């Protein structure tokens, strides 16, 4: 189980970033992708960015996961402590 989602990095402060996931703002840790830049699409797993996406790929895979019901269409919250309002469904190891 490897649920990981694409997010667009908005602003970065040190190793912490705020990112957009399908219109919702989430908090993303950049410890494992320290050279990520604002504007880039990254693969986020359990709150950490693990890789960057090529342009176009991220939007497609996000739409796909939402269509699959793997992530809620409303996929984040401003506090960034959970992905989605139903945190118990959103928190998955992989």
């Amino acid at each position, binding site marked *: *189980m*490897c*649920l*990981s989602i694409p997010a667009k990095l908005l602003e970065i402060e040190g190793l912490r970033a705020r990112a957009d996931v399908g219109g919702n703002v989430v908090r993303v*840790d950049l*410890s*494992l*992708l*320290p050279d990520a830049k604002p504007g880039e699409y990254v*693969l986020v*797993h*359990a*709150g*950490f960015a*693990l*890789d960057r*996406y*090529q342009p176009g*790929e991220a939007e*497609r*895979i996000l*739409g*796909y*996961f939402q*269509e*699959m019901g*793997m992530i809620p269409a409303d996929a984040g919250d401003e506090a960034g*402590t*959970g*992905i989605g309002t139903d*945190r*118990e*469904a*959103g*928190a*998955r*190891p*992989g």
Partner: protein
Amino acid sequence: MDGINGAGEIGDGRVPGHGPGTARSAALAGAAGRISGASVRERITRAADRLASRRVRLMEVCGTHTMAIFRHGIRGLLPDCVRLISGPGCPVCVTDDSYIDAAVSLGLDGKVTLATFGDMMRVPGSRGSLQDARSRGADVHVVYSCADALDMAAKAPSRQVVFLAVGFETTAPTIAATVIRARNDGIRNFSILAAHKLIPPAMAAVLDGGTALDGFIAPGHVSVVIGSDAYLPLAAKYRVPIVVTGFEADDILEGVAMLLEQIADGRAAVENQYVRVVRPGGNPAARRAMEEVFEPSDASWRGLGVIPDSGLRLRREFTDFDAGRRFGVAMAPAPPPKGCRCGDVLKGAIDPPECPMFGKSCDPARPKGPCMVSSEGSCAAHYRYGRVKPGSGS
């Protein structure tokens, strides 16, 4: 591994003319996830023809693949001689009862706050689930990230916070990064109960266990961290074709096509269908963090038993963060849940409907085993999507 007797070249290279371009243009031609890759399906038919009517069994070892395969009815799109089976690809499902039991008793002791990924909450152990423990007074919090558990500890210095650290190579680096931060920030009231699992040793164990397999659909996101090269020793030792594969319907179909082509050619190589995202060396920073904090250790898998060097334990420098040591947690072997056949499901020995409880006394609302609890478990995927007609795609 009958039939795999060719040159068995190893490399992450792809067969010329069967490159990612094929998949990408096919996928882009339709909306995400819809099955548009007629050319990919032709490749599958051609390769199956070359195999005459030899039966081929391919295993996926990633819960997201399992869900996608059921969601899209991909099994029904393949020639009759090709069977897809789900392996131990869901970290919640492979977590042993003994781990759940240890976490439950730690929670019920009342001395610590447990923080866990949500999927773990309803997994039944031999003394109930974490959710049951919470209703009996244990302090259990669901978090999205291990970093959130560390934040909880930083905000409540008088409370011991224990994070239930499960997951494959995708998750382990996030835990490692958090443990490094806990050390650097001097947060003393944070620790982890580690039960991480590694995918390549599990793939080897499935083969060693005698499950007849002709190829692996290797996981996309685990491979983002470990890289496609991580499967080279496995392909060489077992002469088994391995294709790292993406998650959309066309990706999976192309992964199957690439495997069938290898089998028909008599090759056993590591190929990467998901070059859009996965690199040969993975994510070096993530691998470094994982190697700094953890070392390989034997681990107990539900259904597969103890597999040598298939888990991760904290290195000596980090044992201060080992909740097992800090609180004297013992993992006693638990009796297998009565009648639940998750173990056989995880080995690919049976399909979920072959379990007598499937859909009767066991369903997602009242799960008897972890394979039904986790939405990415084989039983849950079968239950939700097993009746979707092949090809109904989206």
